[in-house]
């Protein structure tokens, strides 16, 4: 196991700001305020949830490099959000009730080449559990995974620049995947 490099961890203030960002983001997603959520993303957002397959240990972790459940940029995310505005987006009307639990937040500086002019990038990993209740089903669908994010800091402004969500499931146990994680 890799040793924790103390010099590579962020200071308390940065960690608090990253945590506050992720909580704010989860709040907007849980509230279905998706247009406000889009404003938390950089225009060149790279958002991916790869397909995962069960593998023998020697065959790797099964995280696909080619297949995705979501592989998005700002244009495609905006289209999805616009579709969900419609009363005829049956996968979310009636809406599902979702609750995101974000935990195990780990912050470290990004390599220098990841930085853009006037902004600093932070690597933020977190664990996420999303509880999804649909219709009158008593039991929720639960999705868990690790997010590997890059947050962009410009002064006091924080935006999501990159997200990779590594889900723990291989076969999705839900009729439609109509949420963002």
């Amino acid at each position, binding site marked *: 196991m890799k040793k924790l490099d103390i010099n590579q961890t962020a200071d308390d203030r940065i960690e608090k700001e990253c945590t506050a960002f992720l909580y704010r983001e989860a709040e907007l997603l849980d509230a279905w305020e998706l247009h406000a959520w889009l404003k938390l993303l950089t225009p060149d957002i790279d958002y991916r949830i790869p397909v995962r397959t069960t593998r023998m240990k020697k065959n790797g972790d099964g995280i696909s490099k080619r297949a995705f459940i979501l592989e998005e940029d700002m244009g495609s995310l905006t289209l999805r959000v616009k579709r969900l505005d419609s009363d005829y987006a049956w996968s979310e009307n009636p809406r599902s009730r979702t609750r995101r639990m974000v935990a195990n937040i780990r912050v470290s500086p990004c390599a220098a080449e990841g930085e853009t002019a006037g902004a600093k990038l932070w690597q933020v990993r977190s664990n996420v559990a999303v509880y999804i209740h649909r219709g009158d089903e008593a039991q929720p669908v639960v999705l868990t995974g690790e997010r590997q994010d890059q947050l962009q800091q410009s002064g006091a402004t924080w935006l999501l620049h990159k997200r990779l969500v590594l889900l723990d499931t291989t076969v999705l146990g839900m009729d439609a995947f*109509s949420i963002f994680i």
Partner: protein
Amino acid sequence: MSSPKSLDPDLPDFLFDIEEDLRQGLLPAQIYNNQKIYELEMRRIFARCWVFIGHETEIPNPGDYASRKIGEDPFIFVRGEDGVIRVLFNGCRHRGGQVCLDESGNADSFTCPLHGWSYKTSGELEGVPSKSEGYRKLDFKDWGLISAPHTANYHGLVFASLDPDAKPFEDYLGKFRWYLDIQLLLTKGGMEILGEPHRWVVNANWKSGAENFTGDSSHTPMTHRSILGLKIINPAVANSPNKKHGLHVHDCDGHAISIRQLEPGKTAFWDYPEEVTRHFGTQSLSQDQVDLAARGLVHDGTVFPNFSFIHIGLSDSEDKAPAGFLSVRVWQPRGAGKMEIWSWILAPKEASDSYKRRAYRVGMSSFSPSGSFEQDDVVLWPMVARTGGTVFADKVRMKYNFQMGLRDMGSTPPMTDFPGPGEVMPTAVGECGPRTFHRSWHRWMTRA
């Protein structure tokens, strides 16, 4: 001669009235959620028909394998060390252990975790522990993994049948090959899989997906209303069903396809760009087939029972050009009211890597668990099973209506001058495709 009913007194009696029901465009609601029907489907349909396993480009190298299902039974789709593609039952000959424990990978051999019997990737038994003390007379040739009785590689698509007496795949496909070939053979290299399949469990009967792809055109404006208003789709598709752009081909040796297309002389090729369409030609297709492809906006069809395809051009955002792709899928049964969807995205082999990435993204954005089209199908199909599984639907003998366009219900006669096989309706107003699907279903279900 005894009636099929008397041969099988345990079967629901409504099964034997379906031939007459279908003549009237009716179908009992229960067939979408009935345990006895489901169990019979497993034996009479999935253990006898040709079922899609995977695409040869998923397992390009010797030892490559992927776990697949026929009905609910586990099989290994594997390219042996000899380069031959096989479909092997994933159950050890000794005590039934699963010799393949993961979804895909590469292996030199398959070893059962229970007692260690091991098999070559060709399925041949390779070793048993304590052979010289305990199995001195065991003939390894007799104890290999059991192969599906028949497999067929149809231009890269691999199908298998569990019926030793099955007719050859090409006969089973029949004249429908004229339409399937259009999806696969526009370029010399054929089609290529662009990634691992999407897999997700949907609380609907497998037939809901299969019948939808045979020409359920009238669901489009209602089910998909949320996406049709956004600028990612050709208006000729969005407005379907309409007379001008729709074409339904049914009764094509038990299979059916729905086509939406531009006016004669106009070219769409499902919005593939020039860098791809310049590889299209008559190398493996007739001029009529290429002409049909050229006008094509959407081709979607089902090879009975549960293999469907959709060839379409869309975009994933309003500011990007549309891109063509082919999605193929299996509606894998997992219970009377439950299925698992397996779907793959393909593009022509000759396309550039950057086009293939684009095609994948567009395919995923529209036809996948997160697809802007598919999301709204899969949350609605469970309704069909829910109603079909009710006591009340059984009590009142509720029948679903498949009468759209049936005989004098419709205003359009079939075409007589169409170059392709099957019965061809020059309109997307009608449910002849779903009726063809259910007639095939009924034939297999009542054939002892």
